[in-house]
């Protein structure tokens, strides 16, 4: 093979993908639904309590938690990528709405305790 460096440029991303996957993979069952806008926590809800939350006013996303999974069911963001993501339930899974700078993330019981303290505390 004339271009031996090609292998490097193909293997490197695959290696990085594998490593990142192992690092970021869901760490057990989800416990809470963490909602952040602009990087700041705006809400934290138990995953196993059914509820519907409207996040924001002029720029809104409707978050529905039902039967142990969370989903954005409606939004006025234009691209609706957040709605199309569908349901999430495992720790680490996220729904992202870029136009509204919103992140909905499932976290486990042990994870995110630092956030819990700064966000008002959840036992």
């Amino acid at each position: 093979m004339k271009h031996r460096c090609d292998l490097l440029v193909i293997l490197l991303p695959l290696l990085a993908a594998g490593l990142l996957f192992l690092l970021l993979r869901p760490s057990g069952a989800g416990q809470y639904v963490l909602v952040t806008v602009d990087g700041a926590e705006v809400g934290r809800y138990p995953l196993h309590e059914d509820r519907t939350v409207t996040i924001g006013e002029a720029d809104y996303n409707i978050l529905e938690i039902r039967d142990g999974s969370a989903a954005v069911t409606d939004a006025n963001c234009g691209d609706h990528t957040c709605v199309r993501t569908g349901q999430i339930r495992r720790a680490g899974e996220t729904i992202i709405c870029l136009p509204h700078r919103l992140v909905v993330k499932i976290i486990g019981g042990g994870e995110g305790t630092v956030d819990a303290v700064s966000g008002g505390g959840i036992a």
Partner: protein
Amino acid sequence: MSARTVARFALLTALAMVLSWVEVLLPLPTIIPGVKLGLTNLVVLFALYRLETRSAWCLSILRVLLVAFTFGNAFSLWYSLAGAILSLLVMMALKATGKFSVTGVSVAGAVCHNLGQILVAMAVLRSAAVAYYYPALLLSGTVAGICVGLAGAVLVRRIPL
């Protein structure tokens, strides 16, 4: 600009539009707006090898603008632009070393396209949560990069433009 240059340019722009249309039709899950396979990179790759660098830049920016205004929204424009710029910079650098084939350059370009988009998304969201989807993007980017690269290598060799 000669008529020949204009014709080449129009042809490649049209090809970019067709490829982005194909991309829209593919039923891939889109978690982050503007993150796609990057089939339009074929056009940029071709321009990089067969036309001057300036044309590659023009085509790369043009395809992002056209795709954003035709299929997307103004918002995804910025992510695509960041991805396109990073991608072309890396492709130019790798091509200049002379140690990579068209396919190798294509893979690096595809991976960097997604990287640029993810980095901008992280900055806007002020959250690393998007990284959760990056392994999947790396994987799809590498595979798409290989396919585009192989097709690109054939085009660079065969098309008498």
